[in-house]
């Protein structure tokens, strides 16, 4: 199923991934959210993950970032098997190599915009070049907001701060979970343009989205349905992507009816 690739430029390699959550108040019973997922994500590409709500996209993203421990299977990121790292090592790994953009709540509420942007480097114990932070803020047009705290920003501004954080810290991989979900068209385009530009510097971007037009910008589109990978396709055609999502939804619905 994965696109042809040699393992040299493989960034994320998922094999046999299972994820189950315990059902509250039901003792040992658990709900299977991800079923046996195999997925390869290439370095320096923009990959979009699409699919109906509740199909496990965010869960897959959290697992791939080492934020959630899968119940089965292996995940290799940049050649490192996440399961072999302890919590502390995973944290260090994130601070060195991984950046995040969520739909909302991206920023630490007690830190100013500037400090939020500098945070990952600080956590990794690097000296933060002031110039790089300033440049990133200028490029996203938020230099006037440097000293403000996140709760005094609009949703679009907050999202631009999250992007500036990625731009300034230059992580190897960026995970974005519905980064434009709460934005107007114009702000959404700004965010998407940046996410699309990052792979040119060698950054791998993995983006979960509900918007076929956004997904069409990706090099590779992973369509999920009820915990399975339904299809992996090339980007470009938003209609084809929309059709694939609907098909995945239909398969999920029939599976539910027959279950």
């Amino acid at each position, binding site marked *: 199923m994965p696109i042809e690739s040699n393992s040299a430029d493989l960034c994320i390699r998922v094999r046999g991934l299972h994820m189950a959550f315990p059902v509250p108040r039901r003792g040992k019973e658990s709900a299977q959210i991800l079923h046996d997922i195999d997925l390869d994500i290439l370095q320096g590409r923009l990959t979009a993950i699409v699919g109906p709500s509740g199909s496990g996209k*965010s*869960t897959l993203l*959290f697992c791939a*970032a080492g*934020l*959630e421990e899968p119940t089965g299977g292996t995940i290799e990121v940049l050649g490192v098997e996440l399961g072999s790292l302890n*919590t*502390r090592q995973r*944290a*260090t*790994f*994130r*601070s*060195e190599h*991984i950046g*995040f953009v*969520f739909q909302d*709540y*991206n*920023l*630490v*509420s*007690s*830190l100013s915009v500037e*400090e939020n942007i500098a*945070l*990952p480097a*600080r*956590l*990794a*114990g690097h000296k933060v070049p002031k110039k790089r932070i300033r440049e990133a803020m200028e490029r996203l047009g938020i230099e006037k907001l440097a000293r403000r*705290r*996140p*709760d005094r920003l609009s949703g679009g501004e907050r999202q631009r701060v999250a992007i500036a954080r990625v731009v300034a810290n230059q992580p190897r991989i960026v995970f974005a979970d519905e980064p434009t979900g709460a934005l107007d068209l114009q702000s959404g385009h700004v965010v998407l343009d940046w996410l699309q530009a990052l792979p040119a510097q060698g950054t791998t971007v993995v983006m979960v989205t509900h918007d076929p037009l956004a997904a069409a910008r990706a090099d590779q589109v992973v369509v999920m349905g009820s915990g399975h990978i339904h299809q992996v396709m090339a980007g470009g055609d938003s209609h084809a992507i929309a059709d694939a999502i609907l098909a995945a939804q239909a398969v999920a619905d029939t599976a539910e009816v027959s279950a």
Partner: protein
Amino acid sequence: MIRLVMADVRHQAAMWLWTVLCAAVGAACSAGSVIAMFTALGAAQHAGDASMVTAAIALGGNIVFFTVLASVGVVASTVGLTLTSQRREHALWLVLGVPRRRVRSVLNIELTVLGLVAGVLALPLALLVAAVALVQWTNSGLDLHGASIAFQPWHLGAAVAAGVFPCFVGGWGAARRASKTPEMRAFRENADPSVRTGVGRSVLAFCLLAGVVGMWLPGLGLELSGGLEQRTAFAFAGNLFLVCLLLLMGPWVLTPLMTLWTAVVPAKDVAWRLAVHSCRTRAARSVTTVLPFALALSMVGLFMVIGNAMPGGTAGVGDVLVVLGWVFVVSWVGGLAVIALVGRERHRDSALLSVAGARPGVIARSTLYEGLIYAITAILFSLITLLIACWTIALGARVSPLNMLSGLPWLTLAGLAAMTLATPCAALLWPAIAASRTNVSNALRS
């Protein structure tokens, strides 16, 4: 609406439990010392012992004054913080279409119920407090003619009043604000809303200021017929008013103090920086946490100074404990309660830090450092008030302030400071461990 309130209370059960605990302990200490005083007074009158009557009024009155003051201050600020930290939920009620007046009356009912529950819970504790107090007084040399505590109906009234009153003092402003803040602002603002002085606070502050001036003028400046002793007493009273005034204006005194000293300390460590920012951002929480410790410590300092100044005065730890013991109990429980009220935004921040790659140790340490910042702020505040007290009381008593300083029981004070340092840190140990283990995806989904 009732269902909404019940769901809300259940959702925030831990928070309300801590608030009830704090209010109950405060009520128990206030009511208990009142009960002890009247019991001692009754026994003395019954025995026809006039000197005992004066002694009971003098000692009991002092204790009642300080204990009631401290518990009203501590409980009120804790209750205020509890309501303030729920302003998002209250804004949601408004959005759902509950009229503003209704929101306010619901909050007032919540406050009444909270106070009543605390008062009733406090009754047995208050009797215990009274019994302990009587034993203490006997041990410190008062002949109480075998007075003992037996339940009387008015004890319940005292306990309930001591429960309800501080809840209203603390919750009134917050309830009013909750029903007046524009919904969207309450929704958006994660940080504490900026405090305004308010009429009640302004009037009280003005009275206290008048008290400071009115006491210090004769105490430091005039020749009084009562001689040095009277001057010293005036100077002491002025200091008392000053401490109350400064703590009443906590947001404008404790916050700048905290900002100032944390700015002076070099901040290389990430965990330390995060803690400093967190304390500064959540200013209302910080003030409420520092207040009890600052109150207890500065009162003790004041007593040590006056004990040192009065010839044959009392400055032993035992004597201070008799007068200020309950202040300590209330303050420590209040401080711990506030620390235990961890807000939702804190969970989210911990989760985000973890996402950004903060090691569990960094998150845990930054939480612990917050306790350290609170404690050091309280200690600095009481050190400042101690120095002012030394200087003014030395002026009143016409002795050299330096002699006064060197005569203080520094070892005891250092011990108290160490205790103050240890308490918030110990209380934050569990939250720190919990924060470092935050389940990221859960925290970000909620």
